[in-house]
């Protein structure tokens, strides 16, 4: 165990700004990217469903 207190952990020996700056952006991108990828699939699925609905309406 390297850290005496949570505060020491966040301070990162004076390098907190840089360490969290890089880990933060990394985490952010790695959260946003999958969400965007999933959203892309959701969007196309939604439009497919809408199309299907329109088709069933057409045939009625």
């Amino acid at each position, binding site marked *: 165990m390297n850290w005496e207190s949570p505060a020491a952990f966040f301070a990162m*020996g004076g390098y907190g700004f*840089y*360490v969290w700056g*890089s880990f933060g952006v*990394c985490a952010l991108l790695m959260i946003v990217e*999958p969400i965007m*990828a999933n959203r892309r699939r959701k969007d*196309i699925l939604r439009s497919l469903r809408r*199309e299907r609905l329109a088709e069933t309406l057409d045939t009625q």
Partner: protein
Amino acid sequence: MSNNKIINWFKYASPQSFYPVAGRMIPWFWGLAAIFFVVGLYISFFVAPTDFQQGEGYRIIFIHVPAAWMSMFIYLVMAFWAGLGLALNTRLSSMMAQALAPTGAIMAFLSLWTGAWWGKPMWGAWWVWDARLTSALILFFLYIGFIALQAAIDDARRADKAGAILALVGVVNVPIIYFSVKWWNTLHQGASVSLTKAPSMATTMLWGMLIMALAFWMYSIAVALTRVRAIILEREAHTEWVKELPEVKQ
């Protein structure tokens, strides 16, 4: 027997059968990624000792190096799939290449970003025109070029083929660029810190980096598979099998 295998292979090479397979694989890769991330981050922050030269700042290495490795590795894989798609006209492999590009670009960006945020405390500058940094930057441009080219072409088949040519030309060029930059740099290089001369890494650090690299790898596979599923749906939107999918019918 071997005949059977070929048939199987082709079966999974069609978007239709790959779509559900990918769907089933994604959670596994997420699971693996999560495990490796937890272990890797634990080692990065709690096991790996403080570096006697760089203090705690060096912990950036645990994401910096995996991101840099992945950015290069993904480019190779992407070019491989794109080339396969061009040669054999297999739609799925082209889709795979297209799905990998944004992830690769993000990895390249992360290696630049984390490097810059490392460089500031270590070298006192966000950026120096070092060979490795510069070639990472150019790699990022190559990704962006690939993505922009495909985005600019409306016809999916044409986008695949044009992208493949670009990716292949890029593969030939990446080593050329790398060595030219290296040579350019070493001829002039002044005082900036040389990475290769860094003190040999402690084994825990090495382990941490390797496990984090595995985590990045699993993560990339999971995202790329998610994205390729979206691409399959977009491209095959008009086909019967897509219309018959449970997700669509519900």
